[in-house]
């Protein structure tokens, strides 16, 4: 790719980017949120067309104006969210994308090929299984198999592995390494430096729409990459504990809480906890151990079957979310794009939707100046406060959510994985902001996270949640990582 430039209203997403990728290599494209990684990949896949620049494939200039073009050139993308149709079987889903079998695809033949490829993964899977029964990991595997059957030569992996558990991720690494050894090309897009270091041969770092440098993995250390990615800000990256808060007085009290999960049964089984003012109370745990349900129940988003919740001494057990919002409770849900923002609406609309900012009549000037303040403070990259959120990069969308909720939380912040979609530098910065807010404004924070680095960095008190119960509570300064890890998986 030569001199690729792409402008969006108000921003230059890519500025004369050059990228050379060779057959047989795994090439990582690294960059912080909004660096232009996704834009570049979307150009390669024909979703966007570049304003300037050319794409050269095997010495010939090509024009890719749609994903169909891209697939014809052997370029296939696997994205973060699986593009599968739930009511079809695996084989049927795969046939959909395949032209080589014609319109009357022989299901049997395809099923055989699927099984063969699945074995390469080291997984046995029945291709006639309905897709809705699959886990996220399995769905991503189906995506990879589809890519293979499409005859992929250049595989684009757009953060498709970033959220997988580490062991699963390693299996995929092995698989793409095999693919590369057979002469395939992989472009791995990620904002996680360890991921790039582990899987890639070559790394290109993008920053603010420009290529910083392309390096061989063996030539560099994590710190070098960090410097390339974040420039000056790389100095901020540290996993030291942030200054402790000064816990004082009880803010939120949860007593023997029982909450049902989505599929019946109790997801939360008699949880009791206490969050004080000036304290970050962090809940560590592997995903799916009731953290989500616990936080939702506290927020009034899920019915409480048994137990009580007190806020500032007041019984709020069956109070509405609206009531809590007006009391000054901020809430950062899991899966922000699904639960935390509306991407079709603008930034200011996404702010005004919180009842504390507008009731009845909306004063757009007031909302707008608040939006500008948040954009400045949190360095949200957007053309304007009136831009629809969908035009923002994933990390910036997260920043919109986090900044809004921190501003809303005048007394308590409830958060689930508040920094998951953020790059390292931004994530650490957000943690700092949360902690500063807790200390300076003397608010309480109840944060559940699957990231132990985050927990240790931010928490004053660490609780471990496992199978719907709190299995241990430790003051952060006394907590031991091994012990907590042990309690998480016990």
């Amino acid at each position, binding site marked *: 790719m030569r001199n690729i430039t792409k402008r969006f209203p108000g921003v230059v997403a890519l500025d004369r980017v050059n990228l050379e990728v060779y057959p047989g290599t795994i090439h990582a494209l690294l960059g912080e949120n909004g660096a232009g990684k996704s834009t570049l990949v979307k150009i390669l896949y024909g979703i966007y067309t570049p304003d300037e620049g050319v794409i050269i494939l095997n010495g010939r200039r090509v024009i890719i104006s749609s994903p169909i073009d891209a697939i014809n050139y052997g370029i296939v993308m696997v994205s973060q969210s699986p593009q599968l149709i739930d009511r079809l079987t695996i084989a049927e889903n795969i046939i959909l994308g395949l032209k080589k079998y014609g319109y009357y695809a022989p299901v049997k033949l395809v099923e055989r090929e699927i099984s063969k490829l699945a074995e390469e993964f080291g997984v046995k899977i029945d291709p006639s299984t309905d897709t809705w029964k699959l886990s996220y990991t399995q769905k991503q595997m189906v995506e990879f198999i589809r890519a293979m059957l499409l005859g992929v030569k250049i595989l684009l992996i757009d953060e498709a592995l970033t959220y997988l558990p580490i062991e699963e991720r390693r299996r995929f690494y092995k698989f793409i390494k095999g693919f590369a050894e057979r002469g395939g090309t992989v472009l791995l897009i990620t904002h996680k430096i360890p991921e790039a270091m582990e899987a890639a041969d070559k790394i290109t770092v993008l920053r603010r729409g420009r290529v910083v440098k392309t390096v061989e993995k063996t030539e560099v250390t994590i710190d070098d990459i960090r410097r390339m990615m974040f420039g000056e800000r790389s100095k901020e990256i540290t996993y030291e504990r942030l200054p402790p808060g000064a816990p004082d007085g009880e803010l939120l009290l949860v007593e023997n809480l029982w909450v049902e999960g989505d599929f019946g049964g109790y997801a939360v089984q008699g949880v009791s906890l206490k969050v004080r003012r000036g304290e970050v109370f962090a809940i560590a745990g592997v995903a799916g151990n009731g953290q989500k349900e616990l936080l939702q129940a506290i927020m009034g988003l899920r019915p409480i079957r048994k137990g009580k919740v007190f806020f500032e001494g007041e019984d709020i057990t069956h109070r509405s979310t609206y009531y809590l919002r007006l009391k000054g409770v901020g809430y950062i849900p899991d899966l922000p794009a699904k639960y935390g923002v509306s991407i079709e609406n603008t930034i200011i609309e996404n702010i005004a939707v919180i009842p504390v900012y507008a*009731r*009845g*009549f909306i*004063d757009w000037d007031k909302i707008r100046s608040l939006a500008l303040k948040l954009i400045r403070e949190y360095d949200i990259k957007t053309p304007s406060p009136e831009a629809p959120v969908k035009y923002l990069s994933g990390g910036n969308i997260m920043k919109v959510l986090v900044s809004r909720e921190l501003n809303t939380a005048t007394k308590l912040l409830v958060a689930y994985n508040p920094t998951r979609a953020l790059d390292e530098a931004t994530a650490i910065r957000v943690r700092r902001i949360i902690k500063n807010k807790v200390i300076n404004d003397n608010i309480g924070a109840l944060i559940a996270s699957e990231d132990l680095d985050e927990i240790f960095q931010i928490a004053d008190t660490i609780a471990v949640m496992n199978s719907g119960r709190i299995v241990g509570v430790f003051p952060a300064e006394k907590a031991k990582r091994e012990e907590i890890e042990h309690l998480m998986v016990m």
Partner: protein
Amino acid sequence: MSKTALWAIIILVIIIVGVAAFYGGMMYAGGGAQPTAPAKPAKWTPPSTIKAAWIYVGPVGDFGWSYMHDVGRKVVASLFKDWLTTTYVESVSEDALPQTIDNLISQGYNVIFTTSFEFMDKTIEKGKEYPNVMFFHCSGYKRWDNVGTYFADLYQIYYLNGLIAGALTKTGHIGYVAAYTIPEVVRHINAFAIGAKEMGEMLGKDIKVYVLEIGSWFNPDAARSAAETLWRDYDVDVLAYTEDSTAILELGEEKTTGFFNGTYDHPLYVFSHYSPGWIYGKHAVVSGQIVHWEVIYEDILAKIKAGIYTPYNLKNVDYWYLLNTGAVEFGAWIFDNGTVMHINPEIIPKLKNITVTDKLTGEKVSAYDLIMRRYQIMKEAPLLTPLQLTAETHKYENIPTITYDGHKAQIAPAFDPFTGPLSGYKKEDPNKKVTIESGKRLGHDDLWGMDWFVDWVQYLGKGG
């Protein structure tokens, strides 16, 4: 607090401004749209080319009401092709009528026929709006300087049909499927029932006429199922109807041929309505009513061309055309040579074999002869036609004869079915009785607003 107040104020302001503007606008509109009386020109010159448009309530393919109006249109369009152009718009709802009229006038049409009762008020309204255009409304009673009315009525034909029905029925149960029970249809039901009773009584039958209303001018499915109900549940073997499709004729043919084959225990003889329907049931269709709207359209358009009708003198133009004008005919088919099949030839021998007494003369005659005598009497009433042209002369129409210098002159037919003694009940309130004294003949206005059934009609309500 202040924000809520602000909001309340804004809403209040909007409401106040809105209400003020509303009344302001209303007064403005009220003042501005006052219809001004058209200045009557000193001399009216008929347009050299008359552009006439017909507006139909149903589709021209209905083979009933709208179809026959369109036949009339085609006849005059060919006859007067030197100076007449025509067009039509079909399936126009009452709501769409004003816009349709506006469109027609914007395209230069200067004579407009609106052919449904529902169009009455809006035709008058548009007549006032376009004082130089001539309108003719079919079947209504409201007129204006430039809006005349016309109608060709079938009650005499229904009476003749009723005579046949009374002769043919075995069960004594006769049916009638009505679109609506408006006065026009009530009149036809009564005439049919009077004919049936007259003939049936002479033959010792107990005649009952069962009426089902379907609530639509054109609804083949409802018509068919209403007729089926009457045939099946009420043992009806002869049936007349008012509906614009041929569904009932086809049903009649099925039941009657089924009766001949022995499939059914009773037949269903039917009378075709409005257009010649014999071919839809060559065994079951015994007779029927045929309309010739061209008779009226010829008269109207010729008079417009001659300068007799102008947009300033239609206030009393009201056609009420009966059998003697040729606008309506007794029969089920018109042969290519122009002769009318009054009664199905398969039925004629049956009627000829029945002997009855003509109550007018006391003679013993065959049923067939009686029917044809009555037909002749009503067909030949030479002085009646000019009277039937204007609203002012309707009061003379029920005078059978006048005497001058000891001689008698025939005005209306010597016989009319609606002659007392008759007794019946109000449609709205069956407990209210209606009695017509012996010898009294009902006139135009009585017939026009008829809201009672004769006693042997049983209204079964809405069905189908």
